[in-house]
C-alpha cells in the first residue's frame, strides 16, 4: 500500500499571534514551526497501516526551503520519503492543485491530511485534492481501517458519527481518534537526515483568493467577579444583563 500524507508547516500551538506591515502579514519573528498537529495524526496512522513491510509512506509539503526542518521531523516520525513542492503556499486551492499534480500518476492508494491546519483553519485541501483527482474524499474522520482495497472510516457529524465504507483510492482528512501521534525516537531522528527529500517545481494556477488583512479579536472588558456563595446573582446577570439564558 502506498500512502501520501500532506503536511503543513504551522506555528507552534503556544505562539502568540501578531501581525506586521499594517496587519497584512503574519509576524514570523521568533515563531517556532511544527508539523501541523492533525497532520501528525494522519502521518501516525499511515505509519501504523504500512508497518512491517506492508507499504510505504510519502509526505508532501508545499512550501519553501525554510520548511525542510519540519519535513525532516515528519521523516523522523517514520515517513519513508518526502516531497516538497517548491513554492510559497498561496491558499488551499493552490496547495491542493500542487498535491494533485504530483499524485496523479503515482498510484497512491490513500491520501491523508489533517482535519485542518491550525493556521488558516481551512478544511479544504483533502476535498480539493479529491476533486482534482476525481476520487472520493471523506472529511474529518475519527477512525480509519483498511482491508485490502476496502476501507471503513468513521466520520464526525453534528452530535454523532457516520460509518462510511469506500473501495479503491480516496482522500481523507484526519481528526483526533484516528491514531495517537507518534514521537520520533533517536533512530528515527538519525535516519531522517538521509531519507530522500525530493524538491519539485510548482505548476502555475490562477489566483482565487487573497488575504488582504488580518484582525485580532476585540479585547473583552474586565471580568465581573461574583462571590462564590451568590450563584443566583450570576444567573440573574446572565438572564437580564447578558441576555443569554
Amino acid at each position: 500500500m502506498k500512502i501520501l500524507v500532506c503536511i503543513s508547516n504551522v506555528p507552534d500551538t503556544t505562539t502568540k499571534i501578531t501581525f506586521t506591515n499594517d496587519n497584512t502579514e503574519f509576524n514570523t519573528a521568533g515563531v517556532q514551526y511544527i508539523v501541523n498537529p492533525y497532520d501528525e495524526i494522519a502521518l501516525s496512522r499511515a505509519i501504523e497501516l504500512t508497518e512491517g513491510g506492508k507499504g510505504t509512506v510519502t509526505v508532501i509539503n508545499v512550501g519553501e526551503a525554510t520548511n525542510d526542518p519540519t519535513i525532516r521531523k515528519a521523516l523522523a516520525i517514520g515517513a519513508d520519503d518526502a516531497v516538497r513542492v517548491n513554492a510559497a503556499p498561496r491558499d488551499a486551492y493552490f496547495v491542493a492543485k500542487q498535491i494533485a499534480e504530483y499524485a496523479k500518476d503515482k498510484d497512491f492508494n490513500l491520501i491523508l491530511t489533517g482535519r485542518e491546519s491550525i493556521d488558516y483553519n481551512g478544511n479544504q485541501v483533502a476535498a480539493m485534492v479529491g476533486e482534482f483527482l476525481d476520487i472520493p474524499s471523506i472529511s474529518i474522520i475519527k477512525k480509519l481501517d483498511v482491508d485490502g482495497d476496502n476501507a471503513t472510516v468513521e466520520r464526525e457529524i453534528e452530535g454523532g458519527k457516520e460509518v462510511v465504507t469506500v473501495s479503491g483510492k480516496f482522500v481523507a482528512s484526519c481528526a483526533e481518534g484516528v491514531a495517537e501521534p507518534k514521537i520520533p525516537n533517536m533512530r528515527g531522528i538519525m535516519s531522517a537526515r538521509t531519507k530522500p527529500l525530493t524538491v519539485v517545481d510548482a505548476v502555475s494556477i490562477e489566483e482565487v483568493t487573497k488575504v488582504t488583512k488580518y484582525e485580532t479579536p476585540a479585547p473583552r472588558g474586565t471580568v465581573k467577579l461574583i462571590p462564590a456563595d451568590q450563584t443566583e446573582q450570576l444567573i440573574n446577570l446572565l438572564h437580564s444583563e447578558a441576555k443569554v439564558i
Partner: protein
Amino acid sequence: MGFIDKNMSVLVYVEQAEGKFKKSVFEAVSYAKAIADQQSTHLTAISIGDVAESELKELGKYGASKVLNVSADQLKTFVNQAYASVIAAAAEKESADIVVLSNSFSGKGLAPRIAVKLKAGLADGAVELPSNDGKFSVKKTAFSGKAFAVTELTSANKVIALNPNAFGVKENATDVTIENFSADIKQSDLGTVIKDIVRATDKVSLPDAELVVSAGRGLKGPENWGMIEELAGLLGAATACSKPVSDADWRPHSEHVGQTGIAISPNLYIAIGISGAIQHLAGVSSSKVIVVINKDPEAPFFKVADYGIVGDAFEVVPKLIEALKAHKG
C-alpha cells in the same frame, strides 16, 4: 460588488438531517439572502434528500424565493462527491456565481469540491457578510480563533461556508416556489457508502450549540461529570471539555474544544475547572459571553472572561444548579 448583473443569483445549500432543517441552515439562508440583497439579486436554495414540502416552504421565511428539491434515490443519505456535483450543477443551472453553505461537518467536505468544480475562491469559517466595496472580502477565522483573516475572493465564482452562530437567523418572508431538480449522477460519484449513522439524540450537538458547559482537569476525574451534565441539561447546553480531559479519556475527543480540538462560538460558554491555556482560549474566544469558575484567582481564563466566580467547582456548581432551578421556577 460594483456591478449588478441581473442574470446572476445566489445559491444556498440547505443540509437536512432526518428530513428537518436545523437552526444553522436557517442562519445560512438568512446570510445568503443578505448577500443576494447586496448583489440586488434573488436567492435559490437547494435541498438534497427526503424533505417534506412543508419543511421546504420554511426556507421562504428566511428569504429563499426558490427551492430546488433533489430527491433521487441514490442521494437519500450523504455522498460527499455526488452532493458536490449536484450542487455545482444547480449553481450552473441557476447562473449562481455565489454559493453559500453552513460550515458544518458535511459543509466542510462539500465546499472545497464545489469550489474546484466552479473554479471558485472559497472562504470557509466566514463570520461576517462580504464587503460591499467592490472587492468581495470575507472575514474568516484564522489561527484557531486567535485572529481573523480578511480574504478577498478574486475569482468570478465564489463559495462561502458560514460559521454557526456567526450571523444569526433573520426572518425575511418571501414567496417561495419549489421545483424538483434532477441532475445526472455519475456512478463514479457514488464511491462512499454510509453503513451506519449513530446520533446521540438526547444531547445538544456541540458545534452549533448556543450554550456550552465545559469542564477541565479541575473536576479531578470522569466520575465527577454528573453535575456538569446536570447543569448542561438544565440550560439545554452542550457539554465540552479541555484537551487534558479528552487526552485522559475522561471525555470523548468530540467534546474537546481548543486549538487542536474544535473551535466554537456559542452565545454562552461556561468554563469550569479550566485554567485557560492559550490553546484552549483559541478555540473559545469568539464565544459571545464567557463565564469562568475556577478556584485559582490567577487562572489566565479570568482575563478573557465576562463573569467569574473564584471558588471550588465542587461547591459552586451544585449551588449554581440550585440557583438555576429556582430561576426556572
